[in-house]
């Protein structure tokens, strides 16, 4: 897995993504597109492509950061409950501030995601038995608790079915003007690049990082902040995409090893490529209908994750 293969692959897939869809846009026809066709391209297809790339990059990077900070390959926004907290946050925003704007939703979701992730890290500190498998188990159970709370409120307001439909990750509603919040991921990914080495050191523990002269708490907080913001932004605009932050870093790490500086660009690129493939497949498989990305990644992601788990013995222990 080399950058020189990943970049062309990404470009190729991006082009395919632009020209696949219900409305017929053919790349060979681009010189005599009608105005309507140009509009489709610029208002719908291009924003969709951008959204996919940003989500793919930022979620994978967020997953990688969490794995470094916890020193556990099976921790990610999905398996630490971050996703569930963000979802609860959106629901609270909608119930408390009637007609909440996207910005407000994002903010509340972010607060919940951040709080939830801090709670998870707190719990991790308290658990004596830091088994590779046990840690994500705790996170997932924590996530179910949060979900029970979400369900409680959703039931009260008769929102269960509509909540499901918002939460199911989907790019089909991405249009120019309603996805730009995702851009927030770009500076965060850059910060992640700058801090990459420090995350690795912080992951080795408080004592270890302090003896290397690193402000452990600060690094930890920056990392969790990045993760929470990215997760919240994605959940608010796209919905939940399970396992993406988990499998991408794992696949890259199998192929490239664990030095964060080394694997970060690959993780980012591969995340975008993987999500693009899932999205294109989702659009093509039951054409002219569309399988939502949440389901596509859910199916492919869980299959891949199971595969990783089953071959874990030779790798993550």
């Amino acid at each position: 897995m080399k950058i020189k293969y990943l970049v062309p692959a990404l470009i190729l897939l991006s082009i395919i993504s632009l020209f696949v869809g219900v409305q017929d846009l053919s790349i060979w026809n681009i010189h005599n597109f009608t105005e309507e066709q140009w509009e489709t391209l610029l208002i719908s297809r291009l924003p969709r492509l951008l959204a996919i790339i940003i989500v793919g990059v930022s979620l994978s990077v967020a997953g990688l950061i969490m794995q470094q900070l916890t020193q556990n390959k099976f921790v990610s926004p999905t398996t630490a409950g971050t996703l569930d907290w963000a979802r609860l946050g959106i629901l609270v925003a909608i119930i408390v501030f009637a007609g909440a704007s996207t910005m407000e939703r994002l903010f509340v979701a972010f607060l919940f995601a951040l709080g939830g992730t801090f709670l998870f890290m707190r719990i991790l500190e308290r658990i004596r038995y830091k088994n590779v498998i046990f840690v994500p188990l705790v996170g997932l159970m924590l996530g179910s608790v949060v979900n029970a709370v979400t369900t409680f409120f959703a039931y009260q307001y008769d929102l269960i079915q509509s909540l499901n439909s918002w939460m199911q990750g989907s790019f089909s509603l991405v249009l120019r003007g309603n996805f730009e919040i995702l851009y927030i991921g770009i500076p965060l990914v850059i910060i992640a690049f700058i801090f990459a080495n420090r995350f690795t050191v912080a992951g080795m523990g408080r004592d270890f990082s302090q003896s290397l002269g690193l402000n452990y708490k600060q690094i930890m907080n920056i990392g969790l902040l990045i993760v929470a913001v990215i997760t919240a932004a994605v959940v608010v605009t796209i919905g939940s995409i399970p396992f993406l932050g988990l499998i991408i870093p794992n696949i890259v790490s199998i192929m490239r090893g664990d030095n964060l500086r080394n694997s970060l660009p690959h993780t980012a690129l591969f995340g975008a490529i993987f999500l693009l493939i899932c999205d294109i497949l989702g659009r093509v498989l039951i054409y002219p209908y569309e399988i939502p990305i949440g389901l596509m990644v859910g199916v492919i992601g869980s299959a891949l994750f199971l595969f990783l788990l089953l071959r874990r013995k030779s790798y993550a222990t």
Partner: protein
Amino acid sequence: MQRKTKWIFTILIILSISLIATFLFIGLTPTGWDYALPRRGRSVAAIIIVGSAIAFSTLIFQTITNNRILTPSIIGLDSLYMLIQTALVFFFGTLGLVFFSPEANFLMSIVFMVLFALLLYALLFRGEQQNIYFLLLVGIVFGTLFGSLSTFMQVLIDPNEFQSIQNRMFASFSNINVDLLWLSIIILLLTLLYVFPYLKYLDTLALGRDHAVNLGIPYDKVIRRFLVVIAIMVSVSTALVGPIMFLGLLVVNVAREMLPTFRHSTLAIGSILVSIVALVGGTLLVERVFAFSAPLSVFINFIGGAYFIYLLLRGTKN
């Protein structure tokens, strides 16, 4: 048995009997006698059966996983149940509920859930050094997968039809079908018979694998049988009343806090009693105080979940 244990048992028994009596007779008019009483009686029977099955299966599950903060509900059986119910409505519409009698639906759900659990076990017990946490994680991943599929279908379903799925999403002890009740009792009794000779191993199993093997327990065989029993018990409970994820976790841990012993005979009785008190008390609260504003399982999950976080933060002696 210690004095304290006797006291606690006495209190729990009195509490459950008085709660059950209240539940049966509260606001009962002479005209409702014929109709309401048998109906409430069925609810009580379902509560006792489900409460016991869940408490017991969670207790043995915690023993064989050597962990107090786990519950068998997390291996994905709940999600599978919801997937089956959703798929029925998705493919057959509300008609599906006509095609499939409650008995057929009930048995089919149980068979699927138990088969899934067995498949999971088979997948993971191929090798020699099995890790039960590993099993759980794989179960949860399957659960997420089932969840994704259910959500996909649920979003596409007509809102009216969704209502019938939503009713199944929450455990309910009202409107219990008598035939299903008997079926459940028979299945659970057979299961109990199947596991009975192994119960004596439970106290020793709690010492962990190495000690258990050293003390002459045919470990792998015993664990497998317990896992099968857990799968059956959880499946029957879920198919009878619906999923209540955190009930077992809540009641077993409350029982452990109250009873200072490692003996499973005591712990099992304690957990079952706590479970009955929680369910009957919870149903009364939901019906009389909250006027059905939310299903019982939501409350139980809420309280159980909060308790779970408390256990985690306290840094359990796991």
